[in-house]
């Protein structure tokens, strides 16, 4: 069974937590609390990126999230109509981001952690950008009950 619902806000950082709350509630029966946290963080990072980098902080642009609830996975797609994100940024190995030298203050990252967090928290991450929209597809697999 596939259930899907779509949610949208305009590009305002103040509204991101509404999306997070609604999506979290939708996943409640399917995912354990840690996986809900993982989905919430990935969703928030993806939407922040769209608002900050895609729309350069401009308000009044639309940000859409499609949530597909399936028996074995939760699929979250973040859809926007901004210029696409540069192809290579998603290819960087997420581990590298956090391989800093903690003894060297200057080496500790203050940013550039969002995409790495998404890739570490979701089971699949794909980015498609077409003529009219960009679509970041993130999948969280549902652990079988018996495990």
């Amino acid at each position, binding site marked *: 069974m596939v259930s899907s619902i779509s949610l949208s806000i305009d590009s305002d*950082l103040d509204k991101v937590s509404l999306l997070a709350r609604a999506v979290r509630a939708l996943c409640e029966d399917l995912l354990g609390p840690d996986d809900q946290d993982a989905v919430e963080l990935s969703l928030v990072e993806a939407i922040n990126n769209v608002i900050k980098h895609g729309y350069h902080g401009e308000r009044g642009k639309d940000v859409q999230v499609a949530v597909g609830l399936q028996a074995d996975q939760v699929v979250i797609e973040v859809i926007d109509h901004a210029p696409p994100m540069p192809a290579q940024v998603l290819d960087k190995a997420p581990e590298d981001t956090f391989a800093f030298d903690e003894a060297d203050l200057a080496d*500790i990252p203050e940013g550039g952690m969002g995409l790495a967090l998404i890739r570490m928290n979701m089971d699949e991450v794909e980015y498609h950008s077409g003529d009219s929209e960009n679509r970041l597809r993130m999948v969280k697999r549902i652990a079988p009950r018996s495990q």
Partner: protein
Amino acid sequence: MLSTDLRDNILVVRVEEKRIDASKAPAFKDEMTRCIDSGQNQIVLDLSYVDFVDSSGLGALVSCLKRLGPRGSLAVAGATGAVSRLFTLTRMDRVFVLHPNVDAAVEQLSA
């Protein structure tokens, strides 16, 4: 969004928001910077009320640490659930000492 309390010459800063996310991180950083610039060197950040931090919030924390410089210390108290996992996942638990609660943090810093 912050409330402060001086204990044994250590500044305890409590975050009074549920979320430190991209919409709140700039204000958080500003208020923290004011505390730091007022001369405080030892700070315990109480995150017990916070249930969500994203990479902007974490980045703001790192930026406070840099502002504080090598002579200062910024300890974190009361991080649980998703917040504590974020520190582990990003290896920021090597950067910020995590304490179960404010008392434990103050005790260790004043020892």
